[in-house]
């Protein structure tokens, strides 16, 4: 239960942090902020999904986390790390080609890593781990 509460606190702090960040942007939301907003919504959405799933498991008298959910987390972390290496290579290559600022480059890399993690978690969560 503590972990689930911590998850919701974390989601709320990320959400509030983003609101402050985007709120302080002069001229409101521009095209440049659209991509980070979408990524934040995806990541926050996943965290909320996991949080509510944990709550429903607890409500049914089951553990919030079990061996499969832990293995899925470990597997998706390792796979997303591996894919992220190639993603960073691509970001550096294209960053050089279209002369991106250093800050934007790092931001794009981090957001991309978040999206890759979400996608790999969803993949293993719905596909299962097979005979690994």
């Amino acid at each position: 239960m503590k972990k689930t509460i911590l998850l919701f606190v974390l989601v709320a702090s990320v959400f509030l942090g983003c609101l402050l960040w985007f709120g302080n942007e002069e001229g409101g939301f521009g095209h440049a902020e659209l991509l980070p907003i979408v990524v934040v919504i995806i990541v926050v959405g996943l965290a909320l999904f996991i949080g509510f799933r944990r709550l429903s498991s607890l409500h049914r008298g089951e553990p919030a986390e079990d061996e499969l959910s832990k293995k899925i987390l470990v597997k998706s972390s390792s796979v997303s790390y591996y894919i992220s290496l190639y993603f960073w290579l691509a970001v550096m290559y294209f960053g050089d080609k279209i002369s991106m600022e250093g800050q934007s480059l790092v931001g794009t890399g981090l957001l991309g890593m978040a999206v890759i993690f979400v996608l790999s978690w969803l993949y293993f969560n719905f596909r299962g781990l097979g005979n690994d």
Partner: protein
Amino acid sequence: MTNKIREYRAKYNLTQEDLAQKVKVRRETIVFLEKNKYNPSLKLAYDLARLFSVPIEELFVFEEEE
């Protein structure tokens, strides 16, 4: 590796939710186990076999890889 969890669950007249609560895992884990999309840990395999009062090798069928 395949398993006979679905058969034994039906034999004992248990729902997936009941079985999940008895072996202390989430219902989704039972769903994946029955679809052969997850190989359980030795502890979970042992807990399931003990619950159905059968040896592990009766519940889980190991197939030789070609």
